[in-house]
């Protein structure tokens, strides 16, 4: 089930990587995936499947968690990047939005956003413009720009984290659970932003997302992870049509959407892997 999208150039190529935490905990057991230039690729899977770990392997943040890529390699624009430092990657245009917000609590919202532009050498004016752009995406942030990020609400922090990454003017964003904690309206807006960045500025996305519904609506391609392995991949449309995906990730049974009240207690779940 490899990619059929030969017509597009691979921007990011993850080749059969294995990740071990703390020298003993094997988390990724050989993962290969590709992100083509200008694509939005969704990484789906249950809690603990290894989505975040995959993203961190790319952005090289694993080292700081005592994790290690022990096998395989990762290429960006056909150049190995697994030995690069995170900031070298950011300079190359690859940036990650971390799961769980990770704002700088003592910095104000605006300072948080500005740190995002650290690697850029553009003048103040350009940065100012980008800042305004982020504010226009998230007007709520403009209201709160003077407060320390640590005191803002969960959603505000999420917006700050995303806005901060945008300030780096990246060409590829690794988005970890962008919709988490955001109001439904905003979820749509975020994905609209993703779409517009993708279409207007050619930014590619690799996004880990639990909100499969939305993710598949905006993504071009998707991979489903389970237990550190890829169990299925395909174009977004293919995946949306798959009956298993429908049932387990979209919450749609043949009878249409079912109520959360009707969930069964000890029901057997389908797993691709034994």
């Amino acid at each position, binding site marked *: 089930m490899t990619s059929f999208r030969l017509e597009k150039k691979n921007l990011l190529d993850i080749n059969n990587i294995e990740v071990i935490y703390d020298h003993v905990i094997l988390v990724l057991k050989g993962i290969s995936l590709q992100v083509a230039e200008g694509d939005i690729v969704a990484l789906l899977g249950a809690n603990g499947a290894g989505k975040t770990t995959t993203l961190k392997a790319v952005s090289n*943040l694993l080292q700081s968690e005592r994790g290690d890529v022990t096998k395989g390699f990762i290429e960006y624009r056909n150049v190995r990047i697994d030995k690069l430092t*995170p*900031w070298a*990657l950011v300079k190359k245009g690859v*940036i990650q939005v971390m799961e769980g917000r990770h704002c*700088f609590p*003592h910095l104000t919202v605006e300072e948080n956003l500005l*740190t*995002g532009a650290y690697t850029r050498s553009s003048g103040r004016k350009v940065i100012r413009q980008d800042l305004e752009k982020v504010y226009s995406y998230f007007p709520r942030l403009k209201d709160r720009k003077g407060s320390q990020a640590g005191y803002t609400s969960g959603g505000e922090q999420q917006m700050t984290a995303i806005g901060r990454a945008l300030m780096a003017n990246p060409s590829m964003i690794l988005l970890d659970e962008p919709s988490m904690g955001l109001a439904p309206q905003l979820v749509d807006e975020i994905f609209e932003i993703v779409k517009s960045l993708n279409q207007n500025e050619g930014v590619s996305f690799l996004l880990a997302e639990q909100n499969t519904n939305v993710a598949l609506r905006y993504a071009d391609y998707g991979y489903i992870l389970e237990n550190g392995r890829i169990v299925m991949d395909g174009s977004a449309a293919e995946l949306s049509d798959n009956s298993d995906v429908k049932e387990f990730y979209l919450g749609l049974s043949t009878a249409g959407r079912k109520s959360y009240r009707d969930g069964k207690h000890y029901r057997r779940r389908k797993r691709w892997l034994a």
Partner: protein
Amino acid sequence: MEFFLEVLIGGLLAGVMYSLVALGFVLIYKASGVFNFAQGAMVFFAALTFVGAQEKLGLSLWAALAFSLLLMILLGVLTEKIVLRPLVNQPPISLFMVTIGLTFFVEGLAQLMWGTKVYPLELGIPDEPVATTIESLGLSATNLPTVLQEINSFDLIAAIVAGVLVAGLAIFFQITKIGRALRAVADDHQAALSIGIPLKSIWAIVWSVAGFVALVAGLMWGARNGVQFALTFVALKALPVLILGGFDSVMGAIVGGLIIGALEKLAEVYIGPFFGGGIEIWFAYVAALLFLLIRPEGLFGDKQIDRV
């Protein structure tokens, strides 16, 4: 009254000397959220290198200065490379501990390189009342108030140096984006990495600057007491300053130093006799502690944020 003023001014000036040392702590804390235990050892290392280079290598004062500065920068860069880099994103206590290991190492290294002797350190700054200095310049000091005439030239110059240093650092952090980045790093190493703040160079820079500050402090203190192992103890004088002013504030280091210096001296002179003296050793700490009960983050420190 005059005596009071003299004690007060003496205290303020002593406080400035504490600030010099405290500044080094502040820098590292700002850049990593870590209390750098090795700062005292760095002061010792810097001063010993400076005199050692003069005595053993026969360098001139300026050459020795350049040499020791170079060595401090090297030390900073190596510390980043060997010690800090593998410990990104580790709990502050681990980083704190590693600075303790560094302390032993630096102390050992300094003594290995330059021996364990005591050296005098001459900077050529007159150590005499201002009046005398002014007169030796051929000017008249008679219209200065006596209290001012009595101030020691050396202390005054130390104060000026500290002032310049503080102003310089404050401006540096204010106008360069490094200042903001530092605070970001101190808040969350990993997030800082994720948005491309180059921890490597930031830490190397900050440790080098801290090394420079240590050199300045080492020179000043060394000129006072001679260069010897006991220089590492000056760190103890800086700690109350640090908590009073706030761990992460350059301003705090100077203001805290002034307050602590003055309080300490006044207390020793006016309260000490009731306790048989020697209260200086704990007074600064107790005073700082009491203040912290009111403001747990010190005068200018960033408030700890806990929100659920």
